[in-house]
Structure formats: structure tokens, C-alpha cells
């Protein structure tokens, strides 16, 4: 079952990259979310899949009384999900504002920082 998940992770990564390579900013955003999910699943799968219990210690015990899922990747992914969401929100607002200001969501027309006909540097001391 691990290999099925591994293949699925590949699908997430491929779909995410394909969307990120789009010239439409909104599609890139979707791609970012998909890519992020793919990476989270990658970490999750690399930490070994198990159908065992969640890593929670039953009340009154000092340790779980049976095998539990690996808690470390879960902690990492939890952090990653939250950060991913924060970045996603920020980028969404940024894209929104860029659209309002530049009236464009195509990256080819967003050339304010790197204009098409940049002047040559001055040849003098």
C-alpha cells in the first residue's frame, strides 16, 4: 500500500508543477496548494503508513498500550499545513491586489520590477 501512496504523491507533485507553470496567477496559486499537499503526503508516507491507532496515550497509562502511528511526521506536517495556508492567503491577496493595480493576471504582462526594455547601465565612472 505504500507504493500506491508513493505513486499518488507523484501525481500530486506533477499536477502541482503543471499548474505552477501556467501563466495565469490564479492557476499558479492552485498549483501551489496542490504541490503543498503533495509534499505533506510525501513526508507522511516517508514516515511509514500504518493503520494503527492515533498517537494518543490512553487515560491512566504512561505509554500507549499498542503500536501507534509515527507522531513525528505528523507534527511536522501540522506545522507545514498552517504555514502553507498562511502563505496561500498572502499570495492570494497579493494576486488580488496585483490584478487590481495592473489589471492583469498573466505573468507575461507583469513586468514592473523587470521592465522589457531595461536601459543599459551608465558607462562612466
Amino acid at each position: 500500500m505504500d507504493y500506491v501512496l508513493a505513486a499518488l504523491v507523484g501525481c500530486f507533485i506533477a499536477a502541482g508543477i503543471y499548474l505552477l507553470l501556467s501563466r495565469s496567477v490564479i492557476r499558479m496559486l492552485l498549483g501551489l496548494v496542490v504541490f503543498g499537499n503533495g509534499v505533506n503526503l510525501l513526508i507522511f508516507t516517508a514516515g511509514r503508513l500504518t493503520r494503527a491507532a492515533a498517537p494518543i496515550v490512553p487515560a491512566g497509562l504512561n505509554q500507549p498500550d499498542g503500536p501507534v502511528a509515527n507522531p513525528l511526521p505528523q507534527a511536522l506536517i501540522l506545522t507545514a499545513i498552517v504555514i502553507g495556508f498562511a502563505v496561500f492567503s498572502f499570495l492570494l491577496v497579493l494576486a488580488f491586489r496585483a490584478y487590481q493595480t495592473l489589471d492583469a493576471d498573466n505573468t507575461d504582462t507583469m513586468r514592473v520590477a523587470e521592465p522589457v526594455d531595461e536601459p543599459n547601465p551608465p558607462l562612466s565612472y
Partner: protein
Amino acid sequence: MDASIALVAIWPFAAALLAPWVHRFAKPFGGWVLALVPGGIFLFLLTLIDPVLATGSVSARIAWVPAYDLDLSFFVDGLSLIFALTISGIGTLVVLYAGAYLKGHPHLGRFFGFLLAFMGAMLGLVLADNMLALFMFWELTSVTSFLLIGFDHTRMAARRGAIQALVITNIGGMALLVGVLLVHQMTGVWDLSASGDEVRGTALYGSVLGCFLLAAFTKSAQVPFHFWLPNAMEAPTPVSAFLHSATMVQAGVYLLARTMPWLGGTAAWTWILVCFGGATLIWGALGALRQTDLKQMLAQTTIASLGLSVLLLGLGSTYAVSAVVIYFVAHALYKAALFMVVGAVDHEAGTRDVTVLSGLADRMPVTFIGAALASLAMIGLPLTLGYYAKEEMYLGLLAWRWDDIVVLAVLVAGNATLAGVAMLVMVKPFLGPTLPTPKALHEAPIAMLAGPIILGAAGIVAAVMPDWLGQTVLQPGASAILATPVESHLSLTINPANPLIWLSVLTWVLGLLVYRKMATLRTLLRRLETGLGWTADTVFDALMFGLIGFSAAVTRFLHHGKLEIYLVTVFAALALALIVPMALLGGYAVLLPTSDLGNWSAKLAWPQLTIYEWGVVALALVGLVAVVLAPSRLIAIVALGIQGAAVALIFLLFGAPDLAFTQFMVEVLSVVILALVMTRLRLDERDHRELEDLARDGMLALVCGVGVSLLLMVVLSGDLDTRLSELFIATSVPIAHGANIVNVILVDYRGFDTLGEISVVMGAGMAITALLRRRKAVA
């Protein structure tokens, strides 16, 4: 004794930091107060003469980086003492001079700081024994020289001169570093004084020699690196007097002299030094004849003098080396004095053009005396230091072999031209009929007269005591360069039977001829120059501008501004990084079936997934396909929700309820926000891509996806180190008192991670607020 030698190099830096304040509080006398620093150093160095004469050298050693056995070592022998005394002595007079020359300049305090810092670097350079320290001080002289040349930074010529000097001398600095490291590799020591003969015998001798020569030639303005020196004359005159005649440009000569015991004496050394030195001598001499600006004229003669010194070091005979020592002192004294004289003339008369200056001696008699004393030494008349230098250099070449005769001819020609220029500098501006000058003429202030008079007189006083001169200057200096004891044979007597004196006479006569025909020669040389069409300067400019153009082209190639191509580059690199190392290092071997195939049916078994697990995987795939192919944005958003929900379900199925919970929340929020925002924008519905773009993007995505999948499969086929997880599971309740292990990890074991995460969320929140609020303000 130990620390005080190091302090000689460190004191000027400390004084440099304080200089602006000292200048502010001691306003009209800032120069006098600050001159105490080099003056004190000069006096201290005088006390070292006796120990150096007695024992040959004095050294000091301070632990620098003990872990690497690196000591900050200083070393004073005859050679470094002569240089250090010259630097601090002339430095004292230059600081004094600068105070008067730049009186009232708004940045005079800063200028003093630069000047003193340079002095510290220069003193450190000549006293350093550790080669890394030598390199450090070498570069510091370049940097401080850059600051001093560009002091008048509002003029482009000054900026150009500064950049040119920095670029050229730094090329040499880098070469020096390489050379130093090579020498250390061979000898295993960092100390100059300990480096030995083994360098000459190794296969890398050529490389080491090349590095050191490049360093020396760039610093000492040898052809073809000579052109930065005349342009450095954009600096205020005190700087020219100090750096670009007496001290910094001599650093190259010093380096050659210092390394001569273990680098010199080979055929390569002799040939390269004699050829480059001779070419520089002639080039500088001809260059001086071309000029009418007194300062430029002196700058060109400095190039010639540096060439002369390099040539003599190349010859390497006892006489030649003795001549170098005497010539260094003589040249430093008269050239610094002449620069100060020219500065005084410029300051008081308002021009440096030799063709319009005449008859200044009436109004500036003291300046004239200074100029005369220095010029006589430059001509090399008897009773001056210049005379001894000239005698010594001719003396070594009287064997009348053909190569000696060629060198002798070059020397006589060069010396004659320099003598002619010296006569011009002494006679033309000062004697003859009085011509009107741009400024009302009067004598220079005392602080500006002290330099030329003292230095000019020193050149005479030292010369009338040949025994003292021989014992305290020539012998220790030449002995240090040659690493064998040298006997002095200086004498005041003139023997008409000796051919030597007739060579001197020939030099003077030729010099007089040059002086008389100066105008004709100048016209001729200028016509030649315009006929040539280009100079080293134009080549330098072309190179610099070419470099700027090249960097602009590279920048434009890399920063083309197409986001899509940037991303293609990133993901292509990702694809390569995923696939290539694994394939090359055989990482995929674990995934391939073994040769005997073993129990292949078990390996190919249908994966053990329950029916609802298959359902979730299928749901995720449907969501992904729908996101990619979505014909409208609403479908895309819904599909995004589907794949997110599928991920959450996977988390739920495999023992991660916390993750599932968070993922659900985030997905719902994302979908809602996206739907809100997207419906307010009128966007292109479809994802248009050209066919070749489609193929390229699809290929990249596919390769990356496959790469990640394979990587993960390889990872899964290995062992997992679960020690950390087991520790967390075992200790979560006993020591952290939390039953939910994931939560305990987040808030306890890896609490700082979570703090960082919260900071990211907060930063994003603030940025979002700012972005949204600014819109309102504008509207």
C-alpha cells in the same frame, strides 16, 4: 621591544580614527598636532637603528590564531628600517603640509584620517614578517590609496583615477595572495624571514615568481600597468608627494627586494626585471617630456625611477643593490620635496603649467631653495645622495660586456632625461622674467615650506657624510636584500682617471641637452602619441566598460523577467536533482527485480488496500485531474476542495486525526476565500497554452512527479530510524504530561518550531492587512 614594533603599525590606525575630532578641536593646528603621531614613530624607529646595526634584525611575535599556529610576526632589518624611517619621516612632513595645503577644506579631518590609516598600512607592510599580514597591509594600502585619490569625489577624473588604481593594484594583490599561499605550501612557514632557497628549486617556482612579480609590477606601476599612476595625480598634492612618489609605489620595489634572497638570482628573474624595468624607465622618461603640467611631469619621472629600481634589482649585483638602497632614499627625499614644491606653487600661483610659470623665485625664495636642493639631488650632482646612487649603478656595469653596455646606455639615457626634467622644474618656473599668475603671488606658509627644505637639506647632509651613510644606510639595507654582508665604499673624492666620473658628466651633458630641446621633444612626442591613436588608458576604459556591458548582458540573460522561464529553470533543476544522482549512484537498484526473480508473484501482488482506501485514492486522482483540466474557475475551486478533502481522508485513515482535522479546516477556508476572491475578478476562464508550452510543462511535471515517486519508493524500501519518535512516544506522558503525543511535540519538544510557525502566520497576516488597507487609503 616585542609589542612596541607592532604598535608602530597599529598606532596610525588609532590616530586615524581620532583624526576628525582632533582636527575639529585643534582647528588651525590640526596638522601640527597630528604630525606628532608619525613624528613619534620616527623617533621610536631611530632607537631601533643601534640594535639593528648590532644584530642585523629585531623581531616581534604576537599569537594571532594559536589554533592554526599563526603568529602576527614583525621583523625589522636594515631594509624595513630604511623604508619605515622614510615613511614615518616623510609622513610627518606630509601631515604638516596637508594641514596648510587643504586649510579650510570641509573634509580635512577625514583627509587626515585617510592619510594616517594609509601610513599605518604602509608601516605594517614594511615591518610585517608574516606573509598573510603582509598581504593584508598590502591590500590596506590599496584601499586607503583609493580613498585618498578619490578624496575629491565630486570630480569624475578623481573617481576614475581612484577606481583605476584600485583595480590595477588589486589584481596584483590577488596575485600576491596566491603567491603567498603557494610559498606556504612549499615551505610550510608563514614568515618571510624563514622562507628559504627551496622555493627556487621547485617546479612551481615559475608560478610563484609570476605571482610576486605581478603584485610588484602593478603596485610599482611598471609597464604595462604604469598608467594608473599619472591618473592617481588627481589626488590632492600631499597624497601625491607621499603615496605616489615616496612610499606606496615603492611597495613593489620593497616586495622584490624582500623576496630577492629566495626568489632572485635566476635567469628568469634577471631577464624579466631588467626588461620590464628598462622599458618602464624609458617609457616614464619619455612620458615626462610630453607633459607641461609640473605634477604630471613628476609623476612620469616617478614611473621612470620605479623602472630604474626594478632594473637594478634585476641585475642583482652588489653595486646594483647598493644603488637601489641609496636611490630609494634619495628619490624619496627629492621627489616628495618636489611634489611639495609643485603643490606650493599651485597653491600660491594658481597654476602648474610650466609654460606660463616664470620668475617665481623673487616672491617665493624659500620654495625656490627647496626646489633647487631637491632638483640638484635629482640631477645627481656631487654632494647629493642622487650622485652616489648614480655612481653605484654605473659601477656595476663597467665590465664592458655587450649586455652591460645596453643596460648602461638605457641607464644613461634615462638618468639624462630625468636630469633634464629636474633642470626644467628648478629653472623654468622660478628664474627668468616674471609672468603674471592667476593668483596674487606670495610665499607659502611655513607648514608647506618645512617639507621641501628639510627633505632637500637631508639629501645634502646625508651626502657629505659618506662613511655614516655607508654604515647606517647602505650596508644594512644592501645586506638585507642580498642576505650577505656588504661593504660600503662610498667616498667624496672624485677621481678624473676613473671612467665613472665621465659617465656622470655624459649624463649631465645629455640632461642639459634634453633641457634645452625640451619644447621640440615635447612636440615630437605628442605628435607620436596622437599618431598612435590609443593609450593604455583607452584600453583600460574599454575593458571596464566592456565588463559593465558584459555583466549587463549576463544579468539580462539570467534576469529576463519571464516568470514562467524562471519556474521552468527551477523545476528542470529539480527534475535533474531528483533523477540524475539516484540513477548514477545506483539508488534505483532496490526497486528492480533481482536476477533470479525469487518469489515474483508475491512481489507483484495487488496492493493490500481496503475498498474505501481505494476510494479515497480515486477521489484524490479525480480531484487532481479536475483541477488541471477544469474548464471554468468554479470547477477548479471545487476540484481543489476535492483533492484537499481526499488528503484529509488519507490522514484520517492512517492514524492522524489531528492532521485530518486541520486539513479539513484549511481546505474549507481556502475554497471559501478563493471562491469569494475569484468571482470578483474577471479572469481568463481557461488555461491557454501553446502546444510546445504544453509539451514542455507536461514533460517537466511528469518527470518531477515520477522522480518524487521513485525517490519515495526507494526511501520506503529502506529502514526507518524511529528512535526519536519512540522517545517522544515513551516520554510524552511521564515528562511532558500530555496524552496527545503530536500536540506535545508541537508545543513542547519542538516548541520553537511552532513559535516560528506562528511568526510566519503573523507576518502573513500583517502583510495581508497592509495590502488590503493601502487600497482603501488610495481609493
